[in-house]
């Protein structure tokens, strides 16, 4: 029987990658909660996860030798970073709503912990199979 870690870990490994990137984006939103004209950003998690499963190593960026060279959208991880529609934008052009970002961050970290738990379970069953006890 052929064995591959990708098969054992399944969706959980790309999910962890995507969730940790999303955590960084949401943390940046909260860090910029008081920055004028800052626009809150997020990713479409489903699209990003699908992309991460298809291309686990990520896309290679085009080689840029000049500041004005434009990369295609979503060149690095294969997905685009989108802008959030605010319920009520601030008068200084900032679209960060701390409550929304905090709840999204908490949800994301719970999902991250869940993915970790699943991965830990897979590892434990592998260890049990190796030891045969």
């Amino acid at each position, binding site marked *: 029987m052929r064995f591959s870690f990708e098969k054992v870990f399944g969706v959980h490994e790309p999910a962890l990658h995507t969730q940790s990137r999303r955590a960084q984006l949401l943390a940046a939103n909260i860090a910029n909660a*008081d920055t004028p004209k800052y626009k809150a950003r997020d990713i479409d998690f489903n699209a990003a996860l699908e992309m991460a499963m298809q291309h686990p190593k990520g896309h290679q960026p085009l080689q840029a030798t000049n500041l004005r060279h434009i990369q295609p959208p979503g060149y690095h991880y294969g997905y685009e970073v989108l802008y959030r529609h605010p319920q009520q934008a601030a008068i200084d052009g900032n679209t960060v709503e701390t409550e929304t970002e905090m709840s999204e961050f908490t949800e994301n970290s719970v999902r991250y912990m869940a993915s970790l738990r699943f991965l830990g379970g897979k590892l434990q069953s592998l260890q049990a199979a190796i030891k045969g006890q």
Partner: protein
Amino acid sequence: MSLFNVFDVSGTALHAQTLRLNTTASNMANANTASSSIDKTYRARHPVFAPMLDAFDEPQTGVGVQVLGIVESNAPLKKEFNPNHPLADKEGYINLPNVNVAEEMANMISASRSYQSNIEIMNSAKQMLLRTISLGQ
């Protein structure tokens, strides 16, 4: 590992909010510092925040906050008729700073709330990282 970047990003925000609290404290402390000349009167100071965007920066990762500088408020100074004050000018007026105390209090609360939420983010990121380290044990 992008979770480590959360600490960098939130760290810049902590720094920026600390500076904001600092200027607020300075404004409140000097809210009643009288002066005889307009040039020497204290003016309310406010930091200017901006995202840490860089031309070569990867646009897909989160960016931190930077403080571009501290600007002095252009609001008109308060003039008060107080001939008995030792710093009063020939007409008996003293100049008071243009610090808006209510605005400063609101600024202080906003800064401390932002500081708290950034600390919370760092705490959750720490938990996530610690759990990642103990994976498979």
